[in-house]
Structures are given as C-alpha cells and as structure tokens.
C-alpha cells in the first residue's frame, strides 16, 4: 500500500513538473511571437521619416505672451495687418509704465529681457499714427513674472524661523548630471 501511495505521489510530482515546463514554454512562445499584424507601410509613414514641415502660418491674428523667468518674457504673433512699421508695446500693469520696440514686418517673435520680477505685464502690437500716437490691433493676455527672492509677506499665525532659510537659496539643479536618456 505504502509503495502504491509513494508511486502515486511521484507521478503527481512528475505531472506538476511537466505542467510547469509546458507553461514556461507557452510564456516563452508568447514573448517570441512576431509583432501583431500591422497595416502595411504607407505614404504617411514615409512622410514621417522625411520630417514634415509645419505650417508657416495659420492665417489668424494672435499675440501670445509667455513667461521665461523673473526677468524675461517671450512673445510670438501672427497678423494680417499691413502696417509698414509695427510697434510692440509692453505695459507693466502695476503702474501702467510702458516700453516700445519697433519691429520689422517679417518678425514673428521675440524675447523681451531685463524686466522686473514679480510684476504683471501685457503686450500690445500696433503702430504709431502720424501724430505719434500708439494704436494697437492685437493685445496679449496679462502674465506675471515670478519672484526671485523670498516674500516680504509673513503669516502671523505661522511665525517665521529665520534660521531655516539658506542665505543664498540655489535656483537650479547645481552641477547636475546629464539627464538620463533625455
């Protein structure tokens, strides 16, 4: 009787081993399969290989203003206006002070450096009339340059602990390693 049970147990173990091996092979087979059926190559893919060109313009009027950092903005625009000498006017909203730049008609974007941190700005694209007055035909949304220092505002319910502030807080990833894969 004991021999019979032992033989049965052995048979069971062998069967389990066989089943495990079979499963392993099936998984292997699954991972070795060729890629699932893909549609044939088309002109689209060929075009992708050749690096498509993006539209040179969108035949719309727009003026977009982006913040690059505390002291620099970036603007891009498109206009159908035929003004000979377009003018950009940057307005600081806190005091309505403004700065103007003449641009050429082909220009489509610019970086505007040397600004003040923690201020709101709006950009206008227009022209100067014969009386020297500025008339805009495009206005950007208002943006705010970020601060580059600690805030002077404190919260009385959370008293400040000056010792917890580094003297010169780093503003970046100092001497960082190259970014993996990117």
């Amino acid at each position, binding site marked *: 009787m004991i021999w019979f049970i032992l033989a049965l147990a052995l048979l069971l173990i062998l069967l389990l081993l066989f089943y495990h091996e079979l499963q*392993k092979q099936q*998984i292997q087979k*699954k*991972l*070795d399969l*060729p*890629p*699932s059926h*893909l*549609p044939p*190559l*088309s002109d*689209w*893919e060929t075009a*992708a290989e050749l690096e*498509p*060109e*993006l*539209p040179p313009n*969108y035949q719309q009027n727009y003026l*977009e203003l*982006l*913040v*690059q*950092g505390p002291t*620099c903005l*970036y603007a891009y625009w*498109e206009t159908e206006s035929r003004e000979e000498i377009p003018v950009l006017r940057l307005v600081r909203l806190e005091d309505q002070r403004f700065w103007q730049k003449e641009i050429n008609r082909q220009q489509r*974007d610019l*970086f505007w450096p040397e600004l003040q941190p923690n201020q709101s700005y709006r950009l206008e694209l227009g022209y100067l009339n014969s009386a020297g007055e500025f008339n805009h035909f495009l206005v950007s949304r208002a943006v*705010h340059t*970020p*601060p*580059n220092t*600690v*805030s002077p*505002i*404190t*919260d009385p319910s*959370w008293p*400040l*602990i000056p*010792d*917890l*502030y*580094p003297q010169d*807080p*780093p*503003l*970046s*990833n*100092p*001497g*960082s*390693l*190259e*970014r*993996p*894969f*990117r």
Partner: protein
Amino acid sequence: MPQGYLLLTLHAHLPFVRHPESEDYLEEQWLFEAITETYFPLLQVFDRLQKENIPYPLTLSLSPPLLSMLNDPLLQQRYVKYLDLRLKLLEKEKIRTRGTVFAEVSAMYRHKLTEIRRLFVEVYQGNLIQAFKKHSHQLNLITCAATHGFLPFLSQNPACVKAQIGLAVDCHQRLLGEKPQGIWIPECAYYTGLEEILAQFGLKYFFLETHGLLFARPRPAFGIYAPAFCPNKVAVFGRDPESSRQVWSSAEGYPGDYDYREFYRDLGFDLDYDYIKPYIHKSGIRTNTGLKYHRITGSGEYKEVYNPNKARHKAYLHARNFLFNRTKQAEYVGQFMSRTPLIVCPYDAELFGHWWYEGPQWLEFVCREIWQTNLELITPRQYLQRYPENQILQPCPSSWGENGYYQVWLEGNNHWIYRHLHQAGQQMTNLAAYYPQATGIIKRALNQAARELLLAQSSDWAFILHTRTMTDYALRRTKTHLDNFFRLVREMEHPDEINLRILENQNNIFPEIDYRYYQ
C-alpha cells in the same frame, strides 16, 4: 518620535519611444537599458527588502508613457530579443575574457542578465507593472502628467492641462488598479493655479523645486522642512538642496566616486569592430551595449577594471554618509521647529542604475541602515496624516531646470514649437466643442488627434532641443505628431480609415482615451 523624516522620491519616466514600424530606432533602447539597469535592479532591491521585512516606504512616480510602454506586448517581445543578443555576446565574452582581469566583471553581467531574463519571462511574464504593483503596500506609487507635458506652457488653454492630468490619473488607475493620491509634475514646473486642476482629479500633493516653496507668499515658516498647503488645500513638498547635491551633482556627488562603474567605457565602443559588429546597431554604427568593464578610476583617460565588491562597499559607505549628514541636518533644523523636520529628496529614477550603476545598492543600504539613526522614512500621505495642519500659501512659479524657472524649455533652440502646440491645442478644444458626442470613425479620429497632440506636448522634445543631444529625433517627433494632428483635423469630416488605423497602431498610447477631456 524620530529626529527627522526622510521622504525619498524617485521619478521614473521615459518619453514614449515605441516604433512598431522599425526595430532600428536607437531610442527604443532607452527603454530596454532602463529596464535592465534601473527598473529591474530597483525591483530586486524591493524584493530583498520585502523578504527580510525591512520597511521601504519610498515614493515612486511612474509616468504614463513609461507605464504604457511597460504594458506593450511588442516592446516586451523586443526586450527579450535585446536581452538575448547581449547574452549571446556575453557567451563570446566568456571565452575572450577567460584568464584575464575582465573575467569576473563579464561573469557578473552574464549572471545578472540571465537572472533578469528569467524573471522577466517566467516570473513577470513580460509585464513589469505587476512587479511594481506587488510592492504597493510599501511603495507609494504616484503619477505624472499624461505625456510629461510642460504644464506652464500649456496653461493658456486649461483644457490641455486638464487632459494631461486627467488622462494620467486614468492611466494610473487602469494599469495599477487604484487612483493616485499624488503627482510628480513634469520638471517640477509649477504655475499659479495648477493646484485647482490637480484637485479636480483628486490629487492631494505634488513636489516643487526648493525656491518654489521658499519664495512662496507668505513666506513658509518652516522653510522647506515641512510641506505647506496651496489655498485649495493641495499640499506641496519642497526639494532639499543639500541632499540633492550629494546624490545628483557630477562634481561633488557620490556617483563620481572613482570606484564606481565608468559609464562612458562601453564594449560597443571598446572592442574590435568586427568582433562587436553583430551586437551593435544594424547600420554598423557603434552603440552602447550596456556592458562596461571599467571603473571611473580618475579624471583622465586611463581606466582600471571594475571591481563589483569594492564598488558595493563604497555604496554602503555612501549610504552611511548620506544618513549621517541627514541626521546632522535634522538635528540642526529640529532645534528651531515645533515639529519633526521633513527632508524631501527627489531624484530621477533612471539616475539609479543607468548613470549611477551602484545607485540601487546605495538605496538598499539607506533602507537597511536607517534604523541605526534617528531618522525615519516616510511617504507624503503618512506625513500629512501625522501633521494635518499646515501653513497655507501660494507657491512660486518655478521648475527644477537650470536657473530654476522655464528657461530650459523656452530658449533659442526650442521656442518655435509653442506657436504650433498652442495652435493645435486650440483646434483640439474647438473640435471637442464641435463634436460633443462623436461616434464611429469620427470619434476614433478625434481620439487619435488627441493622442498626437499629447505626444507632441512631451517636455522631453524641448529638453533635447535645448541640450542638443538627439536633436534630429526630437525635431522629427515634434513635427511628425503635429503633422499627424493637423492631417487628422483637415480630414475630420471624412477620415481615411487606413491612415487612421496606421496611426492608431503606431501611436497607441492611452487606448481608452476620450477626446471629451478637451471640452
């Protein structure tokens, strides 16, 4: 009560680099290298810690493009091929290095890659997501934006930001089984108001560069040593610069130690051309094989053979040093604080193992040795449970890129992309409004247009254009996705079924996407 809490966060992300049309894309190897050198070694660390009942409450963000690629059968099949080719080379290397100083390091790779292949095929059946999920009782898994879009430059169209966040949450839930509580915002790039969209999708916290918190209004009472709440109660954690520098800096950080593996000496470039040719790129250009036999040795050209045991011991010493420094830091700042200070240490996950080969070992030693200190590892959720009252403030717009703001992603080499991205974003929201309940092929075309837009928005392309590393690839990816998008829009009334099917196959990220995110 510990003297300090340590919040270790790894951000795992790769751009979506799946190319079913050809096996020749070098960029697809980024994924295979990261699986081999980073994700597997990290998983093996977690497995060992779990087995020995050692706590490892780390925070890990798995970006949706990475999750999508790990879940992709085609890439899984190709990864096995990638491993097999290297194992074949290592068999040849066994003979070549026999009796030489390189025999040991060659055997190390053979052993590691054989084990990785076994685990990948037999244990995980090709899908590493399950492997990460298995550790979710200890690991705090969080999400990132859908395609790692640079959110401040998408913010003029809030629907684009909503789609980036909403799809990320969906993807996380679909592949990992539960909604994420927190998010790693791509490049730590924050703009005022982002927290409103995060809250809409149930996200409770995110991370910022040091000055994102330090320059907040009002000033944070505890500096970066405690989180704060945005006005809508979403919590924000600020990066600790000291611990970053020690791990991250190429000049003074641990990874530059002379005993560690040298990244830039790869067999693909070191060996005789005819010998290595079958194992590099099909075109014949030399490429990395991931097999590197030397240690950093010094700043010069001369390199000595890599000694795994010595490097491992160094990782142990560096882990002890890291914990010692954090203890001193916590002791110092703790004397001024009415609560236990928190030190937030976030890193790119791929730094560990890929660039810093011994990084996973270092991380393991940190988890193993921390009980000997007065520090405790903690997750954001655990911290917020212990300290539910936090200061309310408005964080400062910032990023963790060079100079701390948005300059890396907006400068002379990459500024041109935003005109097109914004135009495409606007067209997408217009289409979503025009087709409130599309069905059939138009719905498919709208969904694919959304995929193409999302893929074009990846911050990786602007970053690569800035660093001028793989410029051609980044240019092509940006332009191709935008071109695909505009073609789909032009043909929206009568989409071409075959072309649509090709794009659905090729750029198959987010199979369950719903274009109505843009409504």
